[in-house]
């Protein structure tokens, strides 16, 4: 058959030379970036102040939430303005387990994820009938309702009402690490496991089905994909990730209260996702970094130009807005897209 001579000329692996790491085949450049990134993530917190470690932990927490949203929106094409609700649900699950049931903090992570998976899946079912803007609106309702529900009098016994719940930061069992560093490494471990899980998902049969539904739902159905099930499941998995982020976030912040989980938190996740890059896993980290540091950077920029002029404080968010517009214009595929572009240029050169 004609097929045999084609095989020789068409390498079946990806064109770039690839290596194996953790059993995953990947191009050399990507592997170098990964190892370097992981190295920085492990060594840097040992060298900086506790506050900087706390900030880095928060970056990872946001990154996990952004990753959850990206699985839903970036890969599956379903919009959500309601992820603050899943984040809140995860945070409260962890806080209540720790506060009322004296569960050790690391045993609360999976339950928080599972509760949010169920929540996401159930919300995903009625959401099947909604597309685009209408789905955005329905999820917006979820985001608006959740803080109010957490304040609701009859739940106060569990939720602590407007006061919220205090969560105490776990002590480090390892003498060489401060409590902040210990928590950072715990969050890092969770993040790495979740990233590996997400990476496995999106590069396999499930991920192909998710992307196929986003690209062409009718064709996906005709190819035998149970689009309803996949969409609900993706909502569940997205909830799982964001719920875990919420649980970790509660422990990192040592506190949960309804007003920490307003609709604006959802918008932050959305900003992180778009700035980081849609349908990309490393983008989650970039998104997390952007969410946490960009407001601070805006503040720095203002103080450089206006000194301590108090009226200039108002310009912080203007600067942030300009940064945001700039990012969206200059790197429409997100920061991850920018990095990918550089890597492609860099990787091509020796070969060509």
């Amino acid at each position, binding site marked *: *058959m*004609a*097929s*045999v001579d*084609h*095989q020789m*000329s*068409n390498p*079946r692996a*990806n*064109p770039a030379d690839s290596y194996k790491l953790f*059993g995953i085949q990947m191009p050399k450049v990507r592997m170098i970036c990964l190892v370097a990134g992981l190295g920085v993530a492990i060594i840097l917190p040992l060298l900086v102040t506790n506050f900087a470690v706390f900030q880095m932990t928060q970056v990872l927490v946001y990154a996990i939430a952004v990753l959850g949203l990206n699985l839903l929106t970036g890969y599956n094409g379903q919009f959500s303005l309601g992820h603050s609700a899943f984040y809140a649900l995860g945070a409260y699950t962890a806080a209540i387990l720790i506060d009322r049931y004296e569960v050790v903090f690391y045993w609360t992570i999976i339950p928080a994820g599972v509760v949010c998976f169920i929540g996401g899946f159930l919300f995903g079912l009625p959401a099947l009938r909604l597309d685009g803007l209408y789905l955005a609106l329905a999820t917006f309702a979820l985001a608006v309702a959740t803080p109010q529900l957490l304040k609701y009098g009859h739940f106060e016994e569990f939720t602590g009402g407007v006061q919220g719940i205090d969560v105490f930061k776990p002590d480090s069992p390892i003498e060489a690490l401060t409590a902040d560093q210990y928590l950072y490494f715990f969050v890092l471990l969770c993040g790495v496991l979740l990233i590996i*899980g*997400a990476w*496995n*998902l999106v590069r*396999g*049969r*499930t*991920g*192909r*089905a998710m*992307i*196929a539904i986003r*690209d*062409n739902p*009718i*064709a*996906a*159905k*005709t*190819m*035998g*994909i*149970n*689009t309803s099930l996949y969409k609900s*499941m993706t909502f569940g*998995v997205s909830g799982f990730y964001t719920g875990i982020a919420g649980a970790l976030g509660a422990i990192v912040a040592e506190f949960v209260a309804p007003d920490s989980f307003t609709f604006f938190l959802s918008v932050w996740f959305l900003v992180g996702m778009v700035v980081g890059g849609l*349908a990309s896993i490393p983008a989650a980290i970039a998104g997390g970094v952007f969410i946490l540091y960009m407001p601070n950077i805006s503040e720095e920029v203002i103080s450089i130009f206006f000194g301590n002029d108090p009226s200039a404080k108002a310009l912080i968010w203007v600067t942030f807005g300009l940064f945001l517009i700039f990012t969206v214009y200059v790197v429409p595929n997100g920061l991850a897209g920018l990095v990918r572009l550089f890597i492609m240029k860099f990787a091509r050169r020796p070969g060509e």
Partner: protein
Amino acid sequence: MSEVGNALADGSILEVRDVAVHFGGIIALDGVSFNMGRGVIQGLIGPNGAGKTTLFNCLSRLYIPTSGDILFEGKSIMRTAPHKIADIGIGRTFQNLALFRTMSVVDNIMVGAHNQSRSDFISNAFRLPWVSREEAVLRDQAWELIDYLGLGGVAHQPVGGLPFGTQKRVELARALAAKPKILLLDEPAGGLNHDEVEDLGNLIKQIRDDRNVTVLLVEHHMSLVMSVSDQVVAIDFGRKIGEGTPEEVQRNPEVIRAYLGTTN
């Protein structure tokens, strides 16, 4: 039950029985019936708007007929969910392309093999050993189709940027990946030049022979339909106006009238 027996006995793989589709006041199909034998290539012709794609959409359960019945291998598909259609062996391509634009050619074809694989969210997230093995099998099958259809040069490119004719071939490969018993081709020659149309005709026959597929072909290129089809059904305004061998249909006065107008 006797009808079911008859259908299988005379080798019909598909029976379309009096299928009508009404959209509000518009009658897209008005009681079309025909049978298809196993292993044949059957042409489905008709002027624009005759209802050909509507019929395809009924066969892949994207439209629900207002009345009538469709039997596949002797069983009605009227209660089959759209996503189960690939499972029972009905594959299709789309007139205006319905590929997954951002995905590579390989990945598109691997989505086509969705019904040939079983891994789910959890087994994928943990990448269990059997998932890796399943993936390897799917990848090999996808590459076999890539070689079969000569798509090797573009295998890793996103399909959205490929030429129309190439995308049509990717759709064909994707449909074949599901190992269909019957293949519904909706204008596969669209956008092809004269030589390419001839190649396509040979390819369709080759696919039928190599892969034991029955083919229902909607096409406007009459030369293509008449050269590859064993049987041709002609419809116009949602009604069947002729049926038979290509020669018979070409001589059919109703068909000639539908294509050339009523000048008597």
